[in-house]
């Protein structure tokens, strides 16, 4: 490689400026979202409202004389159906945030016109997407904790039960395959641009298969198999099993965790590969800026 003919201006590649890319993207994302008033509030209450429906349904059936708790215990292993629902909807929100992370970000940058400005810079894509991811992780974590705590308070659920450390571990490891999936949806957005209707549809499909409101053991065999090929299904179940008397899919926690680790190794690599291939394809055809 020959050196530059006319220098490189203020470009100085170092570990410090590379970290600067990551942290600047992270900071900018927080600044931007903080300037849309109401957005954060929405995200906080959404999972609570989401969990409220089945909980209230359960409560009203219970008040009719049926012992919902007992029935629930027979199929899921725990009588605490309220906590079951709240965990389901809180993890679902984390799953949503993570799954659409790259896709939503790309879409926003496309519509605002900044995508090309970002792409024309010499910053490595993984540093930029790393910053966006860091932002999404923090947001997902805060949203999960807040909605869980608030929800527990609203519905009178015991916060401190089960193995909270193990639950946290399932969430953390479970985020990795989601991150990989996020790149695949990012690639999809690059290709088809407008994806709102697909997102809406997939949202319901996903919530169905990951068992937000019911144990996937009630699904017929082949559907259960599909459900179990979704990494978030394992994450949700792992959290429930850690906190409540729900059983792990493989009966032991470490086998379930190992399964998620396998997903965590495969999905990000596959996702990033698909994403980069799609990016090149776009640049070979019509470019990145269209929307």
């Amino acid at each position, binding site marked *: 490689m020959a*050196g*530059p003919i006319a220098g490189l*201006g203020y470009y100085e590649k170092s570990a410090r400026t590379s970290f*600067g890319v990551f942290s600047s993207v992270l900071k*900018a994302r927080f600044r931007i979202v903080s300037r849309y008033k109401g957005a954060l509030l929405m995200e906080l209450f959404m999972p609570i409202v989401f969990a409220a429906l089945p909980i209230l349904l359960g409560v009203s059936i219970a008040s009719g004389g049926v012992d919902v708790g007992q029935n629930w215990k027979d199929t899921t292993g725990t009588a605490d159906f309220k906590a079951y629902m709240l965990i389901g909807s809180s993890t679902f929100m984390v799953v949503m945030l993570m799954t659409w992370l790259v896709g939503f970000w790309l879409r926003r940058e496309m519509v605002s016109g900044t995508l*090309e400005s970002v792409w024309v810079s*010499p910053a490595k894509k993984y540093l930029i997407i790393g910053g966006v991811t860091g932002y999404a992780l923090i947001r997902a974590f805060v949203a999960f904790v807040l909605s869980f705590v608030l929800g527990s308070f609203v519905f009178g659920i015991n916060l401190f039960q089960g193995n909270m450390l193990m639950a946290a571990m399932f969430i953390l490891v479970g985020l990795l395959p989601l991150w990989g999936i996020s790149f695949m949806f990012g690639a999809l957005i690059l290709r088809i641009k407008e994806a709102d209707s697909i997102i809406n549809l997939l949202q319901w499909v996903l919530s169905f298969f990951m068992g937000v409101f019911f144990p996937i053991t009630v699904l017929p065999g082949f559907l259960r198999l599909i459900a179990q090929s979704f990494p978030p299904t394992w994450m949700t179940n792992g959290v429930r099993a850690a906190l409540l008397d729900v059983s792990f899919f493989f009966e032991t926690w470490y086998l379930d965790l190992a399964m998620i680790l396998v997903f965590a190794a495969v999905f990000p690599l596959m996702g990033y590969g698909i994403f980069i291939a799609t990016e*090149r394809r776009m640049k*070979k055809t019509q470019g990145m800026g269209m929307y």
Partner: protein
Amino acid sequence: MAQAIIKVENLSKTFISKERKKFLRPKKRTIEALKDVDLTIYDGEIFGLLGPNGAGKTTLIKCLTTLLIPSGGAAWVNGFDLLKEENMVRASLGCMLMGERGLYWKLTGRENLDYFGALYHVPKEKRVERITYLKELLKMGEFIDRTVETYSSGQKMIMAFAKSLINNAPILFLDEPTVTMDVHAARDLRRIVKQLNKEGHTIVYTTHQMYEAEELCDRVAIIDKGEIIALGTPTELKKSLNVKDAIELEGAIPKGVVQIIKEMPGVIEAAIKEEKRGTTTLGIMCENSRIILPKLMEVLLENEVQIEYIKPMDATLEDVFIVKTGRALSVDTAELAKEKDRGAGGLD
């Protein structure tokens, strides 16, 4: 002579677009936006890319800035291979590509500059220093600390220009930077471009306004339908015409009369520069306006053409374009291609 800082060899870019018509299956159409372009730009020059809408200026710039991968050919930017050393090519450039659309509207101007500076691996203290300098240079007022959504379109363009300067790159790509600016702001921008050039930056500047290219650029490539049809200094280009004189004529001129004028002896080329509410501005290139004028008057009288004015002019780059293509710059290449498709003949 200075070193070649950008070298383009046989660069081509073909787009495949789908034409959608109601319920019919989309028809595929290929657009050759660039056809085997060869070009050398030297270190320290202001290089103009002049051409009508749809000529391929933006496509060329997007290829050279790594936003598009060309369909064929090769290029080197600042000594780096465009296809193999993408990141070093990017590190060598400052770009103003989409005008005001390249900024985050929810961030302030200063935050935008800092953010993009970081993406160019500019260390924090250099960014702070650079922003202070740019604020001074571009006379940016208090608005630098307001969110971009509150800016006037002129202020947005200035901020977009500032963004392209944040990394102090040796090469600047400016794609129609003055297009939404008023006359004063545009003049200021051109003055700063000249100043930056004196400080050593190489500048690639696209425009479809010939006077901008003429005023600003050391050398100009005139591009039309994806091909470079003329290249040289503005003076060279004008000299190459063998046009001594040009006449501008405005009035209600029927198409047939334009054709008659084109075919008059002593007329090199004639083309419509502008058409507005029944009034046509016609540019006529000729060997000697004094000889042509009486004959021209005859033709106009014979055809009962209503004339607003006739005036002799110096040849401009626009006239170079007219002579080479038989059309004026303001006429859209894309529109023309469509007319050709329909078999309507177009203007040439």
